């Protein structure tokens, strides 16, 4: 993978010779970076049960970015223990400890009854990052009762992927 997105695209002048070095930068390096930018994904191994009414960490992921924009893509299965509408399960993400969604988080799911599953998927576009190692955390809370976020140990896929764009 090309370590960093090459500087501003080159503008050729009429009659200018296209050298191997120039074309390698303009085509090879840009294509290479576009295909494999900094990216990471981590699966949730064990199921996580939460009862907290204030946001607490569920999963952590770290990526080293060279630019300032990323796409966070958490997706997993969840269920609530409460009756229909009795509990609201909320999720948030943090970047280096700073909340993205604030008190309401970036996604909320009203309980559809005990024992029912639903798919949580909350891709979110984040700009203005400082290049370097950034730590992302998925956080959750529930207004009443308990909720389970299922991991691969229970046969479900829970994944938090991050990709620089």
């Amino acid at each position, binding site marked *: 993978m090309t370590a960093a997105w090459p500087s501003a695209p080159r503008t050729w002048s009429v009659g200018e010779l296209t050298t191997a070095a120039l074309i390698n930068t303009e085509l090879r390096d840009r294509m290479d970076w576009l295909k494999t930018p900094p990216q990471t994904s981590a699966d949730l191994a064990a199921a996580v049960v939460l009862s907290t009414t204030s946001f607490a960490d569920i999963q952590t992921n770290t990526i080293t970015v060279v630019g300032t924009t990323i796409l966070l893509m958490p997706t997993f299965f969840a269920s609530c223990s409460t009756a229909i509408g009795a509990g609201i399960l909320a999720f948030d993400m943090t970047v280096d400890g700073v909340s993205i969604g604030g008190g309401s988080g970036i996604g909320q799911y009203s309980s559809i009854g005990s024992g029912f599953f639903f798919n949580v998927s909350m891709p979110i576009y984040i700009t203005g990052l400082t290049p370097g190692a950034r730590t992302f955390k998925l956080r959750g809370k529930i207004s009443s009762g*308990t909720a389970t976020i299922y991991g691969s140990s229970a046969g479900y896929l829970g994944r938090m992927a991050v990709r620089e764009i």
Partner: protein
Amino acid sequence: MEIEYKVAAINAQALDYDLKTALGAVCSGFVYDGEHLRLVMDDKATASQILQAGGIIVAHDPSKLSDAQLKEIEQVAALERAREQVGDSKIDENKYGDNNLLAELAKHVAWLELEVRQLRGL
């Protein structure tokens, strides 16, 4: 603040109830991954409240059901008994034809019965 404990198994609903009943709003709840339990406490929690929470977690018996879980089991059993008693029989609204008000009520009950049977795939 979060305090981590190593716990082999929990009854999440019962432990949540015990913690929040004993400590009130100072305890937000917990996050549990099957091995580690992170207790989420308000930053204003006192040392004695943290100790109390720890005591509840250590003494927690996952096999003991909460009042809410017992009530839920009773409700399921009561519903099962009622289903057995009614069986496949359906309300016959014609039986209530002598009384207009009762007949109207029977018509609605019959409709609800059909709706519920359809929802349950019966």
